């Protein structure tokens, strides 16, 4: 067991973990952050995407001990949405554009989309599509996911002006 200390969704956490524990297992099993999901075992699907120190990573592909001292944001901490609080613009755009069906890829898809827009606030459709290559969705055909990212980008521009 190794003691790790990190910040998850704005809160300090400290836990003993086995070195083999994956970050996604740590989030789900130790912290009960079940909003982050596991869709594969080869790091292809991206369902487990979270932000580690501000960048999107696949939390199945990071050991919890590697995240020691880091700052993790999950879908649950993206916006203070509990008790009816306002959605993050990307969450709002996913809702508005019907960019989700079963919802299983959605947390990862949203976390990656936020990261993509942080890198490139005004992406072309091709840049969005390429930028989401590490996230699989089986329901939407991606059409409305692309629309949602475009919508969120436009909303972001609106805010800047």
């Amino acid at each position, binding site marked *: 067991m190794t003691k790790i200390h990190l910040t998850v969704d704005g809160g300090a956490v400290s836990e003993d973990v086995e*070195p083999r524990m994956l970050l996604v297992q740590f989030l789900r099993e130790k912290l009960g952050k079940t909003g982050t999901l596991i869709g594969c075992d080869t790091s292809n699907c991206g369902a487990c995407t979270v932000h580690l120190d501000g960048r999107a990573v696949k939390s199945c*592909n990071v050991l919890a001990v*590697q995240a020691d001292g880091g700052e993790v944001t999950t879908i649950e901490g993206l916006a203070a949405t509990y008790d009816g609080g306002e959605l993050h613009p990307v969450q709002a755009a996913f809702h508005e554009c019907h960019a989700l069906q079963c919802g299983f890829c959605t947390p990862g898809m949203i976390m990656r989309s936020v990261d993509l827009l942080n890198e490139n606030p005004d992406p072309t459709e091709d840049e969005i599509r390429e930028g989401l290559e590490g996230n699989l969705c089986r329901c939407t055909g991606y059409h409305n996911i692309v629309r949602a990212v475009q919508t969120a980008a436009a909303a972001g521009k609106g805010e800047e002006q």
Partner: protein
Amino acid sequence: MIPAAFDYAAPTTVDEALALLAEHGEDAKLIAGGQSLLPVLRLRLNAPEFVIDLGRIDALRGVRDDGGALVVGAMTTHATVATDPLIAQHAALVSKAVRTVADAQVRNRGTFGGALAHADPAGDVGAPALALGAQFVIAEQGGGRRTVDAGDFFVDLFETAIGEDELLTEIRIPKHTGWGAHYEKFVRIAQQWSIVAVAATVRAEGGTIAEARVALTNMGATPLRATAVEELLRGRPATEDAIRDAVSSVADGTSPPADLNGDADYRRHLARVLTRRAVLTAATG
């Protein structure tokens, strides 16, 4: 999905890491970004008893200008390499190739040195490093450093010149300032490993190819430098027909793999087409 249990240490210096390697021998496995290692551990295709995390060694990160070469710390992430202005200016081939590695999340964690040391023949960093004549700085037990040329670095499938008790610290990339570059990657779906890819960088003078560097991904157990083709390209006009002719032998003598994506003959055919396209794009932008 759950790796077998292992012990773990996260040294903060290269010397500490080397000491841990010496202590644990073949039971130990180094983890850099972990983007190739962790899938293997999750699937229990490998079960090291001890994992040494290089992620806390700050000295292994970053890109710096060292006169005639750029020096890339082995633990520099793909994302950093892909967006580094020095690399874009002096080793554009590396920037372009690294942008095609896996996906954004993997590039945010995966490291340039880790991928080179992993030496997956379908990986996208080996061929550009080879084409540009990179040198690999390896830390030895006892504090020494040795430098290995790219031509000697890739030994076999997943095997490099790095010894079991050594580690890769830096990659020195000779500057190719002003050279055009292109990495032509052939895949069926975007996220796939390269079926075949070609790294080409060209110094053009007027409409002529003054010098060219070409290397192939996944056309054998290691990245392959196409030196004969480079010679044939020298002095040719940068036109499709001239290049087609010069690169026609690029796949001769190669032993590419056969899998669901195609047999060896198909890959050799692809190598010819992709080399032509890569060189043409590198020469003409």
